[in-house]
């Protein structure tokens, strides 16, 4: 069975601080990895995804994530956060059979 663990439930940062949100997954087979963002009052949107190739993937709005296979991790990073990055962030896996599993989410609050 798949599982996704996001270690930080709520992160509070000041603007311009660096961000790293942890995500670990467990699954014995091939998985595809995603980060979604949910801005207040909105639906989830794709931030970035990884399924093969360069383990460092870049997404929208300056976000990036690194896939480390040996650690079963796919941490999300951003060098300098903005107030507009305040949102909830979800890490997710998806098997090649199409089954998705989401983490519980991390709420990021950026103070202006």
């Amino acid at each position, binding site marked *: 069975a798949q599982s996704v663990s996001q270690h930080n*439930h709520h992160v509070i940062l000041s603007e311009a601080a660096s961000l790293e949100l942890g995500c670990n997954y467990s699954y014995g087979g091939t*998985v595809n990895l995603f980060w979604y963002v949910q801005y207040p009052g909105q639906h989830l949107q794709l931030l970035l*995804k990884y399924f093969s190739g360069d383990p460092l993937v870049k997404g929208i709005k300056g976000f990036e994530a690194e896939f480390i296979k040996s650690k079963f991790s796919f941490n999300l990073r951003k060098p300098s956060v903005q107030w507009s990055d305040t949102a909830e962030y*979800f890490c997710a896996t998806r098997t*090649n059979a*199409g089954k998705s599993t989401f983490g519980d*989410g991390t709420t990021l609050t950026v103070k202006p």
Partner: protein
Amino acid sequence: IAGITQAPTSQILAAGRRMTLRCTQDMRHNAMYWYRQDLGLGLRLIHYSNTAGTTGKGEVPDGYSVSRANTDDFPLTLASAVPSQTSVYFCASSDSAGTGESPLHFGNGTRLTVT
């Protein structure tokens, strides 16, 4: 604009009543999903459909039913609502159920309160 439309946006429902949440997509995606989002629990899959005419149960299917008569529509029905079904419901789709590389596209959600 292509995407997923959910209706209603929000609803207050008396316990015991029947309710259908509507979901329509115009992207011709094969696979569609219903999730519920609850604080601290993330997103949990209720039901899914890999293609028109087929449906399957997710993690938390009890008390819900779905149908997939065509590619575009995937309604979720609560036959007899209970307070524990108070949640935000998201419909999602992807262009292929059998390819894990396809991301999910989400609707704007329906906030349901069962009193």
